[in-house]
């Protein structure tokens, strides 16, 4: 405590070395588990890194996974800045997928991509928005706790989507619970096809134009939260509803708006997964990304830049994990889940455990408490 208070760490230690160290600790513990089940941790690590970053295709997959996490991470972060814990990214993404698929199926065969795709993106955002706005409304006007309602809405979304898929959207002769395939104009172009278009050969991978959309979403969220008046109001409500009321901001509207935006972002997951990769509405396409978004947002300190980095980390873990199960017989996918959990634990929840150690090693007396403060505000505001 006193070491922390009296010494400030250089920025590169705080933002670079320390996170790296935490990651290493997590990997070391995961390595122990790997060892315990009779595998070689070192081999596992090299396969993981090489699989995720070693080749163009692996990188493509990594980016594709990261895209989804950027959306859900941003969704959690936006709500968080409004003082809301949106645990319903799962349902909002599912619902977004429904909206996207309805538009895609209805318009896909009839319009060109530049008309259909934007409409699909809008539909995904809109459906996600609605699915989050209802709990937002209930929280603001009826006082229903957002954590419960969003959990319930996750279940409701999946019931609805199973019902629609099984009874209405599924082609009658198909065994699989999925909609018809979209027309080409309703598919988000993949990056390798775009690259081929300008004469650049890339191996095929699912990373698609949604990645650009995700990065745009980051820029937008950053602008929204810290540059726009609306974001100012949202953050004010998130920090102190009473002060916001004093300042003439209407907390209820902000809660509604914060959730709506959060839901819209979560809804965009469908653009990547459904329009970008599957090309048809499938069951369970969200596959826990909504929950992973919580970890992503919190590890990224609820800041878009942090979220991109955390998403990349998770992308690497997902893709590297797949490679691991390809390459190492007996290395099950559950081992990958375990490693991910350990990384969230050590790099996220226990991120400060080693701080005193590093403060002692690299610390220098702070110039002034004000200077120390500037650093943390920057961390928050980028």
């Amino acid at each position, binding site marked *: 405590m006193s070491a922390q208070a*009296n010494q400030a760490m250089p920025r590169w230690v705080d933002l670079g070395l320390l996170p790296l160290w935490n990651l290493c600790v997590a990997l070391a513990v995961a390595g122990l588990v790997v060892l315990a089940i009779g595998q070689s941790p070192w081999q596992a690590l090299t396969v993981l890194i090489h699989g995720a970053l070693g080749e163009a295709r692996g990188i493509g997959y990594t980016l594709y996974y990261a895209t989804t996490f950027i959306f859900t991470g941003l969704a959690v972060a936006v709500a968080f800045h409004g003082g809301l814990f949106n645990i319903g990214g799962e349902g909002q993404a599912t619902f977004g997928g429904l909206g996207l698929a309805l538009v895609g199926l209805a318009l896909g065969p009839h319009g060109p991509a530049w008309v259909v795709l934007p409409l699909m993106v809008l539909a995904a955002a809109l459906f996600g928005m609605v699915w989050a706005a209802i709990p937002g409304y209930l929280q603001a006007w009826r006082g229903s706790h957002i954590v419960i309602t969003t959990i319930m809405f996750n279940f409701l979304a999946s019931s609805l989507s199973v019902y629609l898929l099984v009874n209405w959207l599924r082609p009658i002769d198909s065994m699989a619970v999925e909609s018809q395939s979209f027309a080409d104009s309703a598919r988000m172009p993949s990056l390798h096809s775009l690259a081929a278009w300008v004469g650049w050969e890339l191996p095929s991978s699912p990373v698609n134009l949604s990645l650009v959309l995700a990065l745009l979403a980051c820029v937008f969220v950053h602008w929204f939260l810290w540059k726009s008046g609306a974001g*100012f*109001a949202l953050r004010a409500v998130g*920090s102190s509803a009473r002060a916001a009321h*004093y300042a003439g901001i209407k907390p209820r509207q902000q809660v509604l708006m914060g959730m709506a935006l959060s839901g819209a972002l979560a809804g965009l997951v469908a653009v990547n997964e459904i329009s970008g990769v599957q090309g048809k509405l499938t069951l369970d396409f969200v596959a826990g990304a909504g929950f992973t978004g919580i970890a992503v947002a919190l590890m990224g300190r609820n800041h878009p830049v942090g979220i991109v980095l955390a998403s990349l980390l998770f992308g690497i873990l997902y893709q590297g994990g797949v490679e691991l199960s390809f390459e190492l017989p007996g290395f099950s996918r559950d081992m990958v889940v375990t490693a991910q959990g350990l990384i969230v634990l050590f790099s996220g929840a226990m991120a400060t455990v080693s701080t005193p150690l590093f403060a002692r090693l690299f610390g220098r*007396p702070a110039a002034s*408490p*004000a200077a120390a403060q500037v650093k943390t505000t920057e961390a928050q505001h980028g």
Partner: protein
Amino acid sequence: MTSTCDAARAPSAARPAVQLHDISKRFGAVQANRAVSLSVAAGTVHGLVGENGAGKSTLMAILYGYYQADSGDISLDGKPVHIANSHQAIELGLGMVHQHFMLVDTLSCLDNIMLGAEPGFFLRRAAREVRRELEVMMAESGLHVHLDALVGDLPVGELQRLEILKALYRGAKVLILDEPTAVLTPQETTQLFDTLRRMKEKAGLTIILITHKLKEVMALCDEVTVMRAGQVIQTRKIAETSEADLAQAMVGRKVNLGRRADAKPAGEPILLQAQGLSLRAANGVPALRDVSLQLRAGEIVGVAGVSGNGQSELLEVLAGMLAPQAGRLQVGDTRFDAAEGGWLDPRQARHLKVAHVPEDRHACAMVMNFPAWETAVLGYHELPSYRSGLGGLSMNHREMQRQTEAMQAHFDVRPRDVSLGASKFSGGNQQKLVLAREIGQAPTVLLVGQPTRGVDIGAIEFIHGQIRALRDSGCAVLLVSSELDEILALADRVVVMNSGRITGELAIEDCDEKRLGLLMAAQPESVA
């Protein structure tokens, strides 16, 4: 600077109960305490005064084991001690009433008192025992609290008594009080001081009192120590000093808090007029009953009253934070009628150039985790000058920071740092920032509550000057304060509130503490 008087060697009539020797404490770059020595004689009241941030609270927190000193020693009753945590401090007979209440709102008074010192595993039996002891203690000390009431439901005066009772119950022989009167009414203060005096005499209690109110020091203390910038400036017997002397020692220059009479032009236009305001609080108790009020350009109207008699609600209703059940309001040419449902809201209030400095700056006036420059535009964030680009959707950070710099410079907010988090400023500086913001847009009406609560004497002088200057420029000011001195020093006209009504109105010439006190205490004749 004459830090000649080493308190440790200061002549003391009785044996010292508490001795602090060469205590130093550093927070980051801030030297909060610099070789502080202090000796408090047993059975006396020792005052500790100093500007905001002088290091008083830190020193006491060290004595109470809440912080560890970087260097220095502590002795109690002449024996050197090491106080590693509050638990040990309590065992050593120290009791502390913190600057901010250390109470749990959702628990009863009794639970709050016995927490940490329960005389048994089962609460029921323990509570019975504690209640018996407390009843004796309350009778002896004159400190009365409703033991079964929830803390959240009680007025601050009672909470203050509760805090003291809590310390006494733990067998405190040395009682440290950190700004105990900041939130008390004059009546409550007098009552508290009577009690403290009695306990000093009867029980031989040693008391250390931190306060910004020099009058109180003179009234209660036997000795007083002045701190500035982490150091002891002087320690004096009370008979050997005066308010002016202390003020000068604290601030390093002469301070004038007295009233400055200004001619008040009569017949100025009415800028705000309220009629028949009635408000029922959430629990159904009427908070305002048929309150009518006019504010004219160029006058300061003081609202006096024992806290909890509707002053806060009046302020909030006029600022649009609460909508009354009945009443009418006219601000400039705009009219509102509660019966028709459309009451002023805070946003509209600012459009109508009504500025509001709320009573509770922590919960209300600032967003604690915003940096200063965001806090400095709160409420005014929709002004065109703070907007830029994208049709006004975007905010103009450069302008916001520039304005904040100007505010900080103009109001001498320290530290002069626009990016520092709002919570990191001391109370006095937070208050200055809020005031700067509210005055900054040249309001026509200023509603201000407790403008100098917890603020040191130098800052009070400055804040008073600003309010006067605003009045002189033609603004109408409504001042709610529990400090009669403040009202007497600033107001041109005083209204007194009691049980949600205005029970009297006096021109400032006719005011004195006694008359006001009588109006404030008067039983409302018939409450229909």
